């Protein structure tokens, strides 16, 4: 029961025949082989699967791949450009915003979308912005610091803002 879909992923058109019940996260991980997007729960709670769909941060485990047909998806693999880390990735590295790293792709994608809307956020706004993403390691302190740092970097160098999405 194949449905042909065509999804622009990190700027590149990808096509495949998929069952309607194929989840977007499985399309990304298993059909496209892009395993940066993670699966952390079975109940749409954890946010480890966060990607951008037409620019909106969403939980890809709760969307069918067929819903992304003709649309644009950005994953964590789309953050770096020309071999250079995105300011978010730099900031998470420099501010030690991760320990095991499992939640990190989802955190960065949620933060990416959040900072586009709120480029100069307070700590409280950041915490609200990532409230759909769970972390079991860090206690969120350095994640918040990383996002704040990334916001400063982006304000200082707006040209570094876009990823490949």
């Amino acid at each position, binding site marked *: 029961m194949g449905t042909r879909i065509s999804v622009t992923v990190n700027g590149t058109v990808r096509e495949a025949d998929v069952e309607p*019940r194929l989840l977007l996260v499985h399309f990304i991980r298993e059909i496209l082989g892009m395993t940066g997007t993670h699966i952390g729960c*079975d109940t749409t709670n954890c946010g480890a699967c966060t990607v951008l769909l037409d620019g909106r941060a969403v939980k890809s485990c*709760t969307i069918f791949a067929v*819903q992304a047909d003709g649309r644009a998806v950005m994953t964590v693999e789309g953050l770096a450009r020309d071999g250079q880390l995105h300011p978010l990735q730099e900031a998470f590295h420099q501010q030690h915003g991760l320990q095991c790293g499992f939640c990190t792709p989802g955190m960065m994608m949620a933060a990416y979308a959040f900072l586009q809307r709120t480029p100069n956020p307070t700590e409280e706004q950041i915490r609200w912005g990532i*409230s759909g993403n769970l972390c079991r390691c860090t206690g969120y302190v350095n994640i918040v610091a990383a996002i704040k740092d990334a916001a400063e970097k982006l304000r200082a160098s707006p040209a570094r803002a876009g990823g490949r999405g």
Partner: protein
Amino acid sequence: MIPASFEYFSPRTVPEAVNLLVRYGQEAKLLAGGHSLVPLMKLRLAAPRYVVDLNRIDGLSYIREADGFLRLGALTRHAEIETSELMRGRYPLLADAARVISDPLVRNMGTIGGSLAHADPAGDWGAAMLAAGAEIVATGPGGTRTIPVEEFFEGTFVTALRPDEILTEIRLPQAGRGQGGAYLKLERKVGDFAIAAVGVALALDGDGACRRVGIGLCNVGSTSLRAEKAARLLTGQKPDDATVARAAAAAAAECDPASDLRGPAEYKRDVVRVLTARAVRLAAQRARGGA
């Protein structure tokens, strides 16, 4: 983790979608935001044979004031209502409610129409719309009809919608002067369902007395509930401390919470009492032009 197989349709118009419901009846489920349906499908608690995706239908997502009504298209995402200047300025009850639904990622997909049609007693829109006195517009093979929200929720996950009808619009009376509203929710953590939540809409007349009071209660019954006695106690009265306390106590008595992991029933009743009082005061403050 993996849903059962289904046949997928992605109609481009409402009549197309309605025809699919006519053809497949109870075997079909509508897909809007999908963040209530898909989690159930992933656990195979729901396994519809046909899924009708509404997301490619243009013209179902809008927030506008027209002809004396605020009209919300059924496919308007919670996030759009949360960030709308019009909502924040003129419909604070709705802006408050949108803000506390689940988490920001879910709010980017979830829709107000889908939420109301799903009719989870823990759904925030149910309580908010009961407070606001909204009307539900349903489109079926025979055309559209309007259902007052007080008649909409029939049971847990059961609404007055027929199997061949699609909820297409929600409307409420356009905001006027002297009106205020508030929605307050107590939850264990962000993204959780409410321990209890209360929505209040009211208007104050020139003397400061309440008129047209609506109070909606979330997750303290088998459906979204109206606190009718509480609302009547406030109507025609100034919302002074004693009156508000009486109304809050009435709201607590009118609900029917179940004891569960979110707390014992008596605790939830008291949360309703406290939140009703706070929401009434906040709504009144906003009606006077403050907050």
